[in-house]
């Protein structure tokens, strides 16, 4: 298996103030790698630095130290357009990912600006239609509508078309399903699983929900206070956690089968 992403000793320190500088260590020495066609879950409570890791991988902020190797080369050495052709993000809130004044098509059309010489309008149309069919959306039903006319689940599903259209290799899904209802959430999770099977897309699935991470991931990383404290194959991490923090965390997850004693 080839490695698609390697993070080596990633550290991010946020500083604020000019004279009396305050600094917050958001991410400390995070090292992990991802293989092609693998779903890796990054699990942690709020404030544990999950999103900071995602932002660094997406080149939205620069790491204070450490490096990100994407397909054998430093992530920051890529041309921006090329980088975003190969890495795409799905964010938590599908409603704010769209501009309410434009039709939803625009979100997909804009992906083509990542190509310098572009495609002809017919070709674009064809790519959009075939991709939407592939993820179970009827293009006639959705294209030409405005964001407020669609439900959160539909909008999120629609956003997943973006990485598919340009054949991205890595999708960073930052809390992509936390805002959705249980019934639509299951659909999105299954869609991500099927994309992994069929298209060999790798997914970095960032979540605070342990149940979702267990359901979807091949490998899991548990973060606490900016550090990865446990990582390994999902089966090992979720069924036989080694660290006491992980065990404590899993104990507080409500389960369908078991009731807590108070």
């Amino acid at each position, binding site marked *: 298996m080839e490695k698609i992403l390697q993070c080596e000793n990633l550290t991010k320190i946020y500083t604020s103030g000019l004279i009396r500088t305050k600094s917050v260590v958001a991410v400390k020495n995070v090292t992990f790698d991802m293989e092609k066609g693998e779903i890796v879950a990054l699990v942690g409570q709020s404030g544990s630095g999950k999103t900071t890791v995602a932002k660094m991988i997406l080149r939205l902020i620069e790491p204070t130290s450490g490096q990100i190797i994407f397909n054998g080369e430093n992530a920051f050495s890529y041309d921006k357009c090329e980088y975003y052709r190969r890495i795409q993000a799905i964010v938590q809130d599908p409603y704010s990912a769209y501009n309410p004044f434009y039709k939803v098509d625009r979100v997909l059309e804009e992906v083509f600006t990542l190509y310098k010489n572009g495609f002809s309008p017919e070709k674009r149309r064809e790519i959009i239609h075939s991709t939407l069919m592939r993820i179970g959306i009827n293009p006639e039903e959705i294209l030409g509508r405005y964001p407020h006319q669609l*439900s959160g689940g539909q909008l999120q599903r629609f956003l997943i078309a973006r990485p598919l259209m340009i054949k991205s290799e890595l999708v960073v899904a930052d809390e992509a399903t936390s805002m959705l209802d249980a019934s639509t959430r*299951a659909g999105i999770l299954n869609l991500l699983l099927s994309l992994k099977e069929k298209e060999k897309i790798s997914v970095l699935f960032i979540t*605070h929900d342990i149940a979702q991470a267990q359901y979807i991931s091949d490998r899991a990383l548990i973060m606490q206070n900016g550090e990865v404290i446990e990582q390994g194959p999902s089966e090992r991490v979720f069924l036989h956690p080694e660290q006491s923090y992980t065990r404590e965390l899993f104990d507080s997850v*409500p389960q369908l089968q078991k009731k807590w004693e108070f």
Partner: protein
Amino acid sequence: MAEHLLEIEDLKGYYRGIFGVIRAVDGVSLVVDSGEVMGLAGESGCGKSTLAQLCSGSPNPLLHYESGKILVDGYDIYKTDPEVFRTEVKARHMSYIPQASMDSLNPVKRIRDFIMDVMTERSGERPSKQEIFKMAGDHLEELGLERWIIDRYPHELSGGMKQRVVIGISTLCHPKLLMIDEPTSALDVTTQKLVIKSLADLKKTEIIESMLFISHDITVLGQLCDRCAVMYGGKIVEVGSMDNILENSLHPYTQALISSVVSYNPKRMGKGGLKSIPGAPPDLRDPPPACRFHPRCEYAMDICKTDEPPLKAVKNGSEVACWLYYR
């Protein structure tokens, strides 16, 4: 004393505005008995928060009470004199904690001064400081918080603490019924467990008698509730004991909802077992006729499109509104 602490009969509450009329709660009947914790489950937009708002007696401006009856401990809340309702019924007989209420603490006041204001409003006179602070301190201690918290400002507290302080403040007068809307949806799992434990303690120490607990997360409801009602499209589709809902649910919507829930299992990895419900929730401006679930239901029959199923008791003790179980 009424045996039923909360009795809702054929309640209708609509949102009216330039967008038209949204039938958010459309003919709901529900009973919460003394001493039980009732859960209210459903997807977003199914009307569960609207129902609680109507029961609180102070619905938001666009929400209109249309018809039906709500009895809280014997008081018909839309027929009681507002002044009596405000001073007598609220806080003493029932208390409502809306969604995101942990942001309702006054940021420029210490918790103790906020409590002072609340108690002044409730009792109509300014009570003695020492007495109130001691009482509030004791009360928060019962919820598992430290006594010094009452000297803090809200920004010094974490989300879970704020939520528990809010729960504490709203139960200061020992209301019989506590209605609480999504208390844990913005919290981490570990703090969520603490908040749920506080709620269980409130019940155990008999500060409150019964609770109406609203959540979209059925795994959380399962930890706390004795009975559970499932709402869909402004109506209740199934009411039954929590175990029945989780294990032997009857209504196709409840079954679909349960099979779409991702739950952590420390013993076994499950892959691909989840099913999502096809289609989208109904637009309540123009809900589907008869059974509101029929466009998405895999068992839909002809009668489902023409006649509305009543909520009827079936043999395992649950009440179900579905034509599959009686005809």
